[in-house]
């Protein structure tokens, strides 16, 4: 839900750079440095504690904050690469004016939005991020959760090496339940292409919408025939052509798991690789545009993907 305007004003007056937030229960002190962003239920600040930079999310909405904290705690127990930022502290703060806030402190993820990364570095990075995201989704689903509100705004690309990470677990829902929070453009229910039950295929639909959103930053309406609109729009994006078959299947809910989708994407990379090898052997023929595009994708995708597995 959109933040209440009056509350937002009050909030901005009470929390500014330099404000010290002292936890009511655990007594830790955090110095606010700057605002990182504002979401549906609260604001996120960069803060400093013991000389280290952390992200602090604060809100007066106890309920939603508590739900998010519960999710972050569960995700913290999943093995392997972190799913979502790690949680460091949860506490309350009573402002000098007497307003009661709840806040939690998490790892500060320094990165840039997915779309600006792609714009700067080119679409050959698409494959890497697809594989990384599918990997994370696979582990998330295996631990009994669905991300739910998967969208471009909830992803950051960390640098050196580029690794896509998700923030904001507000929509993360246990498998089999009703999706907690969603954004229309990414929601298959809105597109009349499935239910709002938390299942792996719900995330895979949103996954495709993330990549569409990169090429349609203003998004688009569903029109009278939502599925037709969607497939047409997908078809029109040239950089996504190489992956169109699995992307289309994901939109139509044909994958029961991210592993299944990942397997088919990998196959596309390997086949492209094989074809280019063949061509190399037959010596320099002029290469059709499509193949040059795919070579780039293959080398970078496989390379970086494997590299990110080692981290």
């Amino acid at each position, binding site marked *: *839900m959109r933040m209440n305007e009056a509350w937002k004003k009050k909030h901005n007056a009470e929390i500014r750079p330099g404000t010290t937030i002292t936890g009511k*229960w655990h007594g830790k002190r955090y110095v606010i440095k700057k605002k990182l962003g504002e979401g549906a239920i609260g604001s996120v600040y960069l803060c400093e504690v013991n000389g280290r930079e952390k992200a602090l999310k604060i809100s007066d909405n*106890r*309920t939603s904050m508590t739900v998010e*904290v519960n999710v972050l705690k569960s995700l913290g127990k999943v093995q392997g690469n972190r799913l979502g930022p790690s949680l460091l502290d*949860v506490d309350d703060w009573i402002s000098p004016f007497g307003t009661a806030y709840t806040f939690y402190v998490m790892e500060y993820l320094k990165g840039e939005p997915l779309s600006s990364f792609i714009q700067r570095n080119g679409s050959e990075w698409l494959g890497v991020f697809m594989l990384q995201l599918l990997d994370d989704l696979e582990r998330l689903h295996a631990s009994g959760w669905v991300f739910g509100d998967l969208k471009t705004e909830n992803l950051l690309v960390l640098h050196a090496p580029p690794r896509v990470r998700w923030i904001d677990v507000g929509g993360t829902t246990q498998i089999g339940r009703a999706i907690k929070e969603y954004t229309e453009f990414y929601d298959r*229910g*809105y597109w009349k292409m499935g*239910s*709002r039950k938390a299942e792996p295929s719900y995330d895979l639909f949103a996954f495709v919408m993330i990549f569409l959103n990169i090429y349609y930053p203003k998004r688009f309406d569903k029109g009278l025939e939502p599925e037709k609109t969607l497939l047409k729009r997908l078809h029109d994006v040239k950089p996504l052509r190489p992956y169109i078959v699995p992307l289309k299947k994901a939109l139509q809910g044909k994958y029961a798991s991210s592993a299944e989708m990942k397997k088919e994407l990998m196959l596309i990379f390997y086949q492209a690789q094989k074809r280019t090898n063949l061509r190399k052997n037959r010596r320099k023929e002029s290469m059709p545009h499509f193949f040059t595009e795919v070579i780039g994708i293959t080398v970078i995708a496989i390379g970086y993907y494997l590299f990110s597995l080692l981290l």
Partner: protein
Amino acid sequence: MKKGTLKQILLITDGCSNKGEDPSATAGLAYEQGITVNVIGILEDDASQQPDGLQEVEDIALSGGGVSQLVYKKALSQTVQMVTKQAMTQTLQGFVNKELKQILGPEKSLEEMEPEKRGEIMEVVEDMGETCDLEVLVLIDTSASMTDKLPTVKEALIDLSISLNARIGRNRFSIFRFPGKQQDMEKVFDWSPRLDDISTIFPGLTSGGITPTGPAIREAIYQFGRKSLMRSLRHENERGMEEEA
């Protein structure tokens, strides 16, 4: 904890009531009887300032123990489902808080609890919200000014049913409009688990200029009462038959 049924009235309007008793008073009456009243006020797309008439929206929800939200037509779908879910959580939290006070003493509530405990309690509230049964009586203002908004209301209600039917718990919806042709309120869609097929009832729903919000809420309370009365009668009958058999 016993699995219960939450009862909600969802009032969708674009203006102020102008006939009959104060709707806030009747909403309070509903709340007394365990029915939450949520209100959605639809704003004109070009309205820059908040119309005075819509203060009533907040007042009704406040005394009805529910949630209110002013919204432009475009965002109606997402708002309707969020208001409904938020109100469910609010009601369930109220129950849990009451139980907690009984166990832990009057000064203990969710707010005064340390974050770890609060987390555990929220898990219980979430579980209840997912599994409880829900009855929503939708009350649509069909006065003349609503005409151009009704197609969006229809979409939003179908969308609401998609959201709620993803839950584990069962749902029942019914739709009433006010004013009706003869009375203050009139049934347009009988209790049903889904709202997928409401398209046919929507054309030609608009009517005259009066907005009897208060009387309509009172009538809605009666409809809820009637429903549970019928159910308990049916229950009695079934039991009677079992005994005979």
